[in-house]
Structure formats: structure tokens, C-alpha cells
């Protein structure tokens, strides 16, 4: 693994960690209606971020359908490890590529092999 791969992998792992927390947020918010907003953790690769983004459970579920997709505040994009696939105003959807994409795809608990 070269330096770029290592960086992509670590950034990917950070985002996988954010996703794990957000999956729990969704579970704990399960009694709410799908339209009311819930505060999720910004899934950017910056470990010091800690910002919250309000999404409905329906919006969250739509993003979660793809293992390599994450939602981040509009100015929290890392172009060397991800590309913006959708701009939702206050936040954007990014897709991880390279080693980070691999880490994200293989660490998705929803799609882990039995």
C-alpha cells in the first residue's frame, strides 16, 4: 500500500466510524416519523469535525443504499479521496474512490457477508 492508499484507507476508516454512529442514531430514532429531521454526524474525513447535519430518516436511508456514499457539509469535501455526486444545499453527497472506497464497501455492516 503506498502513501496515497494509506491516506485514503485512513480517511475511509474515519468515515466508516461516522457511519457506525449514524446507523445507531437511525436505530434509536426509529420511533419517529420518517419525515421529521434527526441530527446525524457529518461524515466528512476530518476527525475534529463533530458537526451535526439534520436529515429525515428517509433521506438518510436513501444515502445509505450505496456503501461508498457519505453525506458531508458542503465545505467538508476532500477531493483527493471522494467526488461530489449530489448537492443538497447545506450538505453534499460524496462517493469514496480508491482505497477509501474499498474500506467503505467492505466495512458496511449492512452488506457484510454472513
Amino acid at each position, binding site marked *: 500500500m503506498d502513501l496515497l492508499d494509506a491516506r485514503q484507507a485512513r480517511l475511509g476508516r474515519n468515515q466508516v466510524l461516522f457511519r457506525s*454512529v449514524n446507523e*445507531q*442514531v437511525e436505530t*434509536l*430514532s426509529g420511533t419517529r416519523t420518517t419525515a421529521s429531521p434527526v441530527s446525524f454526524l457529518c461524515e466528512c474525513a476530518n476527525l475534529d469535525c463533530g458537526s451535526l447535519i439534520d436529515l429525515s430518516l428517509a433521506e438518510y436511508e436513501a444515502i445509505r443504499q450505496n456503501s461508498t456514499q457519505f453525506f458531508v457539509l458542503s465545505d467538508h469535501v476532500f477531493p483527493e479521496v471522494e467526488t461530489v455526486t449530489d448537492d443538497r444545499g447545506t450538505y453534499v453527497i460524496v462517493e469514496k*474512490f480508491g482505497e477509501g472506497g*474499498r474500506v467503505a464497501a467492505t466495512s458496511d455492516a449492512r452488506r457484510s457477508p454472513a
Partner: protein
Amino acid sequence: MPERLDHVSITVDRRGEANAVRLPWRSRDYLLRKLRTTDGAEGIVKAFEDVGATRPVELTAEEKAVLYRVLDDRAFTTGFHELPAGFFELRNALADEAADAAQKELVGRGPPPDDVASLREDIKLISAWIDLATQRDADASAIFVQAAGLVRDERQARLDELEMQ
């Protein structure tokens, strides 16, 4: 410049479908100059020269890997915002294709194994988020704090397991 010489297309796969990524002719010339001095890029240069501007450039997986490295080196040398037109898009498309191929290859395999250092880092990080959220607005972030606590507990349990081994 006639329309047909305005750009060249390179075929890149995305989720199993062939897509054409366009590179302006000026960028294509710049790239070829760079590739002519790159070891192992002879096949790429030939592929570009053979098709001219009339057909898309078709490259092997190995050639695409070399091309990605050249584009990526250039990106890190000059910065992403100063790349010749089309380089960034081509680089990303090549990276996406490589990621797709790798993910396909990894189907059936589990996630990368946890290690003690990464788990410790995760636990420290989650604790910092919880502190931050609690300071900010305890009511609004109650669910988040609870969720983060559950993930921290799960990471801690895995760390304990690893340390026992």
C-alpha cells in the same frame, strides 16, 4: 481547430458500463509529452496515437493503472485546482474503475481486520465527539450521544477481546 480534433475520448468503466471521458486536445498533447518520458507508458502513448481523435482510446487495466499514477503525481505536484482541463475528471474516473474492480474482487470477503491501534484511536475519537455534543446542546444531541456511546462500547469490547489474545 476542427470539431473532430477538439478532444479525445478515453473509455473507462463505471459499475460495469463503458463511459467515455473527454480530454481536450491541448491536455491530450500535454499528457502524451509526460507519458513519453514515463517508464511502462509506451502502450498508452501508442493507444492514443493510433486512434487520433476519431475513436475512443481503449486501455488495458495495467495501462490505466500507469495512467492514473501519472495523473495523480501531476495532481500532487501542482495541486488539484491547477491541473490541465480534463485531468481531474479522468483521474477520478480511473480511480472509480479501479475501486469498482477491487470491490468486485472483494465480494465474499469480510472487512479489514481491526487492530489495537485503530480501535484505540476510534474510542478516543468517539469520546471527544460525545464531549463536544454534550457541551453544545445536551437536549438536541441526546440521541447522538447515546448512539456514539453504543459504538464506543462495541469498539471497547473488540479491543478487550484483541488484548486478551
